[in-house]
């Protein structure tokens, strides 16, 4: 990174503030659509931090995959399950929230003291490194098996997601002369409300 140190500090502070505020907005805002867009802001801030950490390839992959695919997928899911329901108020909600906040602050304090107290073995910088070249060498030499397994995993996840999200109406299988009791599923997929009105 050939920026001057002041520029690095300022950009780190700006990106960290953006990321933290957007993350708090994701968690705390009531409207779920605002949360989804703020999640995109979190991803963009994190990719800026990756660029500060000399990881240009992963920063580009972060923007492509997270902002381009995952965030759009989440927005589609919000639109598909867009049902404005007032959640039934549950008892002792503030006790649960405050207990969770205390636990999270405790985890943060623990991690913070660990981070500050540990003497990190900072290695001297070897100068500019071609990250794409290094990552490619790693992928095709010593991390070849995880790389191929990741492709198989993505294929399996794609098939599984399609099968899970598909709306298939199971036809009534009636075999004459046989009891169809063990073949019947106890629950079958619901029809959409619009189709229910139409029929």
């Amino acid at each position, binding site marked *: 990174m050939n920026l001057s140190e002041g520029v*690095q*500090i300022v950009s780190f502070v700006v990106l960290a503030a953006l*990321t*933290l505020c957007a993350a*708090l907005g*994701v*968690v705390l805002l009531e409207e*779920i659509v605002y*949360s*989804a867009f703020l*999640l995109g802001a*979190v991803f963009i801030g*994190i990719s800026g*931090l*990756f660029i*500060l*950490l000399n*990881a240009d*390839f*992963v920063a580009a*992959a972060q923007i492509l*995959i*997270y902002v381009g695919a995952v965030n759009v997928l*989440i927005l*589609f*899911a*919000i639109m*598909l*399950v867009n*049902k404005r*329901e007032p*959640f*039934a108020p549950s008892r002792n909600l503030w006790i*649960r*929230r405050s207990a*969770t*906040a205390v636990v*999270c*602050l405790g*985890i943060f304090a623990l991690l913070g003291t660990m981070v500050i107290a540990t003497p*990190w073995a*900072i*290695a001297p*910088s070897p100068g500019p*490194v071609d*990250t794409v070249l*290094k*990552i490619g060498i*790693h992928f095709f030499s010593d991390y070849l098996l995880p790389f191929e397994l*990741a492709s198989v*995993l*993505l294929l*399996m*996840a*794609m098939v*599984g*997601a399609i099968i*899970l999200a598909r*709306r298939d109406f199971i036809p009534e299988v009636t075999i004459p002369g046989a009891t169809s009791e063990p073949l019947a599923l106890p629950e079958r997929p*619901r029809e959409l409300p619009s189709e229910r009105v139409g029929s």
Partner: protein
Amino acid sequence: MQLYLQYFLLLAAALFCTGIYGLVTSRNAVRVLMSIELLLNAVNLNLMGFSNYLDPSEIKGQVFAVFVIAIAAAESAVGLAIILAIYRNRDTIDMEQFNLLKW
């Protein structure tokens, strides 16, 4: 005054705790998935910091971060498909009412 590894680790810890809070307290199922994405991003930031400061010649942390990104994409696709399926089944996305396996 320069950037230290500790700054990035503290930022990642704060992001992780925010994600944990959202994961536990949110009642919308989609928001739970968003919190999981926050957690994975915090871990990625940690890996990047270690890769840049502790292992700058062999950047293995970036390789691990790419794997984490791939796993996160698969996880979010399958998770959203599960949410769609359970929304069709129960007609709600309230986490409090997903108690089909409870008793």
